[in-house]
């Protein structure tokens, strides 16, 4: 028998907040955290896009993560753990220290074999790989060049060599934890290990749809009765010392070139949009739970996940199919899974990247499928694009929008590409049923259907 699946815990860390409360408050205030790209990146390349959305400083010890752990885990795992701790606190699931040396916990009130972990990430521990690689490539070369410099007589040549040496950025040690930091599945693995969770543990890699796909698969596993609870979500960390991840997206002209005012650079669904605002990263984790299990422990319920759908464009590795035929098919499958019709959908948390192609395709689909008055916003208008984390962060926004009957604006939308009901002000909205959709490089499409709990 199919089970009902409810959201009972939320956690996030992203450019707009160290926790859900701070993030939601900043969302409703329409804030953005955007700035110029790091000063040293242009030493290595010329960039079309000059703006990004950096993460705020973070002290992981405040989330219960030790100093040693923070040196031995990639930021994607640290973010996953920070979000998971919050989500469990939010769900009222108490954890107790199991092994002091390992800093691992158990959750005595649940069957750990029925507790799964489903995480998504686009690039996993790429940042850690970049650090290891730069050490391996540059360490001996820098020593050699330093010795050469000592013997150089010609001042201009010596100055040039000195400049090259200064630009060689790399950690002084090859991190012996490089493998476990780089592997993409470390984010779900570390969460499972941290809390002794022994159910299904999977990491999904579907580019910008990863967080939505992970949440969807966790939903399906709880719905089928395979597990009783799951921590689901997505994480991303996209910084490297040379701006090479940024350059990858900049080169294919995916990034915004609205360089004058960083806060206005992300403008999904605006006629003058030029691309997405690159985010340093972030993450979100939700506790999803079988309804009777949640009721038995009087858990607060943020909302119910009632459907999930996915499809593939089967078309192009970096461009979506602008006919939107497979996204259309996916949305209808998800609504069928949820047992609702398009007329039931009150709110859409759009993928809304701010790229010309995505927003044109997505807005046409929304116009052709849903009610004229369906509310639409893009969380990326505030946060920029966190790639594999975005679907999970947007699932948090969708749950909070349903729970609080309000949502954030679709920022910087001065001249909409279509006459749709984009959120222009924070107000009371009768949001009962919502969808959150994500589309990723590779042609991955995924959508969650959520409803207020009744």
């Amino acid at each position, binding site marked *: 028998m199919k089970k009902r699946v409810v959201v009972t815990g939320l956690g996030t860390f992203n450019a707009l907040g160290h926790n859900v409360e701070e993030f939601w408050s900043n969302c409703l205030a329409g804030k953005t955290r955007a700035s110029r790209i790091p000063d040293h990146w242009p030493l290595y390349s010329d960039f079309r896009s000059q703006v990004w959305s950096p993460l705020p400083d973070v002290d992981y010890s405040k989330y219960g993560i030790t*100093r040693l752990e923070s040196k031995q885990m990639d930021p994607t795992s640290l973010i996953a753990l920070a979000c998971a701790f919050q989500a469990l606190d939010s769900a009222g699931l108490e954890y107790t220290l199991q092994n*002091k040396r390992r800093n691992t916990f158990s959750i005595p009130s649940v069957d750990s074999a029925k507790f799964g972990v489903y995480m998504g990430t686009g690039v996993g521990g790429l940042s850690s790989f970049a650090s290891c690689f730069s050490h391996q490539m540059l360490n001996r070369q820098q020593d050699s060049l330093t010795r050469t410099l000592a013997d150089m007589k010609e001042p201009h040549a010596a100055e040039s060599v000195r400049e090259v040496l200064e630009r060689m950025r790399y950690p002084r*040690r090859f991190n*012996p934890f490089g493998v476990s930091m780089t592997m993409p599945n470390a984010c779900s693995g570390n969460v499972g290990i941290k809390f002794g969770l022994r159910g299904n543990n999977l990491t999904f890699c579907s580019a910008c749809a990863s967080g939505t796909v992970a949440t969807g698969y966790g939903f399906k596993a709880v719905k089928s009765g395979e597990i009783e609870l799951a921590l689901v979500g997505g994480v991303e960390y996209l910084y490297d010392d040379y701006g090479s991840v940024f350059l990858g997206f900049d080169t294919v002209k995916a990034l915004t070139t609205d360089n004058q005012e960083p806060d206005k650079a992300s403008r999904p669904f605006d006629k003058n949009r030029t691309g997405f605002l690159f985010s340093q990263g972030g993450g979100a984790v939700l506790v999803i739970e079988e309804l009777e299990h949640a009721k038995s422990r009087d858990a607060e319920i943020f909302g119910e996940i009632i459907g999930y759908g996915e499809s593939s464009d089967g078309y192009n590795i970096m461009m979506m199919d602008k006919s939107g035929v497979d996204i259309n098919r996916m949305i209808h499958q998800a609504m069928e899974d949820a047992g609702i019709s398009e007329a039931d959908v009150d709110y859409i948390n759009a993928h809304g990247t701010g790229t010309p192609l995505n927003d044109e395709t997505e807005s046409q689909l929304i116009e052709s499928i849903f009610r004229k008055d369906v509310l639409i916003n893009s969380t990326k208008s505030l946060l920029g694009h966190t790639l594999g984390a975005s679907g999970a962060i947007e699932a948090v926004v969708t749950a909070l929008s349903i729970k609080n009957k309000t949502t954030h604006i679709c920022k910087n939308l001065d001249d909409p590409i279509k006459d749709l009901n984009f959120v222009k002000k924070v107000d009371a909205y009768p949001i009962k049923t919502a969808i959150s959709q994500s589309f990723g490089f590779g042609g991955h499409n995924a959508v969650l259907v959520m409803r207020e709990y009744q």
Partner: protein
Amino acid sequence: MAEMIGFDEVFTKVKEVIAEVFSTDEKELSLETRIVDDLGAESLDIVTMLMEFEDAFDRQIPDEDVEKLLTIGDAVNYILNFQKETS
């Protein structure tokens, strides 16, 4: 190059590292404490300990030298000797 420091400071720093890596009380540590037999060190603990020694003493320690560090006293003497050799 890192400054040379004396026995007391090396011993104190070694104990701080070991206490953090093995989540134990510094007061329970002595020069005779055996890193594997008494503290139950596993391979990743040893790797972590070496990383922390390198940071604490600002020196690179060759991986193969780990076999010389059976007790805390071995670690203290190793670092004292290593300081002399690399200064």
